[in-house]
């Protein structure tokens, strides 16, 4: 039972846990104490003096952001003395402030504007020339306008404490004090833009959003990031069917306000000039534009014909399409095309983990668990590069609760900065190294194990057996690459498993060919690729195969296709994604892209053209079906509708599959790469093309 402290704030009785700061105690009582430098979750700074309050019996005003609530304290937050002090502080902040609100990107959502509006003086007594310095470009994505900076050091602290990058510092003295980047005149960093987002004023601005519009001119659509598997909630600012910025300022998702460079800036692939806008059909060796009716009719006719003569059809699904689409695709393949040769690019051995944990509940860690667990073990993964939000979450846990982190990796990783124990091992020897840590791990009260694609097949079982041998509660995260990699496995885009990891034998089917076998089959009659690019790494053996590709761009695979159907991106549809931790979240459509259709719509059109019945091509209806039929997906709809994350709990008996570790291969995308989508994001490319060691490799 936590100790409680009673105090009085503005005449209200407040009871808060011991150790609470007065600024937070006031917030709990619904009283706002203004603050620039104080920021929830970051170290205390007490630089801005905006939070001054009057405390009974204290000789002078005190900063509420550093004052710990004491029993019997009597605090007043809006006395004339306090208002006078705030007014003076603002006058001081404005001495060199340009007040160019009309052209400042922050105008309309600027904390300084709000405060000056509330307390500020209407007139300036400062008649001297203001100190002015030119705006600087720190990196392709980060701009800095020194005169607007109020030196709250939020940016410095988020980069250092939050990210562990330490790319921003303070240079010069007195009125010339400025924020400076780590490479003297430019930044080499994660380019996450957290500093821009956290800046209370318009000093740090975004290279993508600068001077584009005003905050009140946009519609704000909360959806899920289209890039990696961490499933960050992102709020897209939309104007005229164009995405103008992405952030999550309202902290409404599982990621709070965290977004990495891909989530915050990498949304621009949707408007890349090479985006497909019309279906293409191969005629005389060349892909030519046709209309949707012609393209769909052609695919339906060819599929029917190949099915009628008992031809072999291979289907390759996507790591980026919604659960609804993945579910429909496997249903279409198995029920309409009568094929079980269906697979996707597997980036982590989720199947083996589900199998090894058969019969248990609560053994899969959620992103929230990463913030609360007392100890964690990272195996063979560079989280800061490949799983940015999970890395942020573990780091926050360490800062706030003293997480004890163990890292077993082949190379250097950022987590070593604070790990209690980090072990380097040769690739392939990770588990042996982990087993060497048994004695230390047994001393922990609980553990979350995160493992990358080096641990697969039989090794996953060995890892779980090792976890059991520790005698403490252990939870697992199987790291995967893309936005819905986890959902692709959950929805049965696998040759041996139906949705929910049920064996195909339940549906009276034989195990089908896996992805490399599909590509290598010389007698393949048709290949249907939805949102994937398998031919980038391997050739298609069958030269006669009829190839249909649904994608956003003319990828290597699409270039080989006979029919290319332009698909909508994740920002252009509704549906659900399942993140790396198995949390289901809802996508909301932000924009329309003329010419493209969602994959679900395309399945619907094809089914109608083939006079087949696969149910309505409507995301809500399909999700109803998933909830009713897929084990672990019967989640509460209100949670999803409210923008929350609902943990799925795949759980049934053993998963009777052969272990095929050779099929598991992570693309090892770094912070600035994101498979096909990353190649078409000018924001991400602008960073990797910028000079700087960090972005190489």
């Amino acid at each position, binding site marked *: 039972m936590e100790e409680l402290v009673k105090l009085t704030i503005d005449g209200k009785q407040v009871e808060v846990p011991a150790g609470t700061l007065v600024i937070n105690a006031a917030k709990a009582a619904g009283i706002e104490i203004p603050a620039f430098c104080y920021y929830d979750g970051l170290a205390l700074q007490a630089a801005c003096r905006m939070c001054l309050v009057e405390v009974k019996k204290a000789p002078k005003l005190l900063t509420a952001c550093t004052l710990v609530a004491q029993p019997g304290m009597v605090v007043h937050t809006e006395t004339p003395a306090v208002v006078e002090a705030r007014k003076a502080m603002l006058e001081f902040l404005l001495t060199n402030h340009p007040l160019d609100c*009309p*052209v400042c990107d922050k105008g309309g959502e600027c904390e300084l504007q709000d405060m000056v509006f509330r307390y500020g003086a209407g007139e300036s007594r400062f008649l001297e020339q203001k100190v002015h310095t030119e705006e600087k470009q720190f990196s392709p994505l980060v701009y800095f306008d020194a005169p607007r900076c109020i030196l709250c050091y939020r940016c410095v602290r988020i980069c250092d404490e939050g990210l562990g990058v330490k790319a921003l510092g303070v240079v010069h003295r007195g009125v010339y004090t400025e924020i400076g980047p780590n490479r003297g005149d430019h930044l080499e960093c994660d380019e996450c833009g957290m500093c821009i987002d956290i800046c209370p004023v318009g000093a740090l601005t975004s290279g993508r959003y600068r*001077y584009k519009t005003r905050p009140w001119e946009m519609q704000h659509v909360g959806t899920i990031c289209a890039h990696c598997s961490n499933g960050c909630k992102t709020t897209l600012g939309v104007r005229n069917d164009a995405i103008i910025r992405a952030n999550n300022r309202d902290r409404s998702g599982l990621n709070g306000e965290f977004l990495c460079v891909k989530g915050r800036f990498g949304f621009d692939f949707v408007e890349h000039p090479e985006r497909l806008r019309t279906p293409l059909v191969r005629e005389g060796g060349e892909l030519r534009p046709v209309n949707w009716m012609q393209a769909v009719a052609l695919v339906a006719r060819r599929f029917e014909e190949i099915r009628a003569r008992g031809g072999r059809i291979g289907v390759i699904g996507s790591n980026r399409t919604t659960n609804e689409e993945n579910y429909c695709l496997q249903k279409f393949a198995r029920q309409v095309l009568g094929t079980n040769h269906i697979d996707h690019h597997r980036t982590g051995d989720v199947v083996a983990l589900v199998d090894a944990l058969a019969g248990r509940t609560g053994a899969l860690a959620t992103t929230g668990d990463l913030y609360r667990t007392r100890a964690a073990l990272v195996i063979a993964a560079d989280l800061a590069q490949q799983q940015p939000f999970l890395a942020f979450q573990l780091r926050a846990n360490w800062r706030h609760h003293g997480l004890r982190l163990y890292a077993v990796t082949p190379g250097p990783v950022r987590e070593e900065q604070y790990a209690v124990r980090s072990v380097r091992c040769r690739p392939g020897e990770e588990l042996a190294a982990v087993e060497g840590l048994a004695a230390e791990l047994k001393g922990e009260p609980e553990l979350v194990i995160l493992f990358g694609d080096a641990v697969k097949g039989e090794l996953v079982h060995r890892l779980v057996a090792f976890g059991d041998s520790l005698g403490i509660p252990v939870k697992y995260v199987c790291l995967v690459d893309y936005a819905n990699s986890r959902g692709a496995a959950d929805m049965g885009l696998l040759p041996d498993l139906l949705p929910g990891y049920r064996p195909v034998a339940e549906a009276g089917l034989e195990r089908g060919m896996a992805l490399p076998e599909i590509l290598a089959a010389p007698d393949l009659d048709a290949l249907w690729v939805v949102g994937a690019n398998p031919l980038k790494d391997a050739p298609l053996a069958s030269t006669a195969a009829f190839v249909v590709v649904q994608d956003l761009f003319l990828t290597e695979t699409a270039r080989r296709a006979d029919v290319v159907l332009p698909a909508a991106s994740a920002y252009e549809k509704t549906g659900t994604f399942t993140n790396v931790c198995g949390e289901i979240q809802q996508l909301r459509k932000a924009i329309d892209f003329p010419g493209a259709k969602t994959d679900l719509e395309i399945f619907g059109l094809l089914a109608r053209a083939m006079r087949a019945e696969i149910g309505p091509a409507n995301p809500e209806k399909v999700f109803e079906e998933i909830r009713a039929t897929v084990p672990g997906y019967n989640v509460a709809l209100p949670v999803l509708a409210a923008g929350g994350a609902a943990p799925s709990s795949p759980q049934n008996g053993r998963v009777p599959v052969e272990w095929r570790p050779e099929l598991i291969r992570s693309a090892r995308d770094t912070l600035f790469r994101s498979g096909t989508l990353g190649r078409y994001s000018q924001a991400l490319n602008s960073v990797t093309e910028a000079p700087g060691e960090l972005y190489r490799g």
Partner: protein
Amino acid sequence: MPTKVNEIIDSAAAIAKGLGVTLKEFLSPTITEDYPDSPPRFQERYRGVHVLERDENGLEKCVACFLCAAACPSNCIYIEAAENTDTIRISGGERYAKVYNIDYNRCIFCGYCVEACPTDAITHGHGFEIASYDTVTLIWRKEQLLAQPREPYPEATVTEVG
């Protein structure tokens, strides 16, 4: 018959008085507008079709802050902003209005936009002949609203962006 005589005198006096007014007005300057044969005259504060002003260098005053659009009660101002560069400098600030439309189907000439503008860029001119049989033509573009460039007009500003 004194009453008859009085009546005649009274009537003549009334006529003379009336004609006197006529004569006086006839001789004083006319206030009736001769529109459309000659242009009408306005009070200075008359709120007519808007003019987007230029500064003393001929640069556009509008910095695309969107405050007029925010103030407009009939939501008829549409702006797209863009950034000035060294080669293309349109306005005095960092930003300029790439597109600035006013929809005169909806404008109620309330003047709120003029009041909201921090750079005195949008003003009410005295234009009023905008009636049209085709409502589409009532959406005025920046090119129609912009004040004529004055001399001297800097070379660099002549190049419009596409």
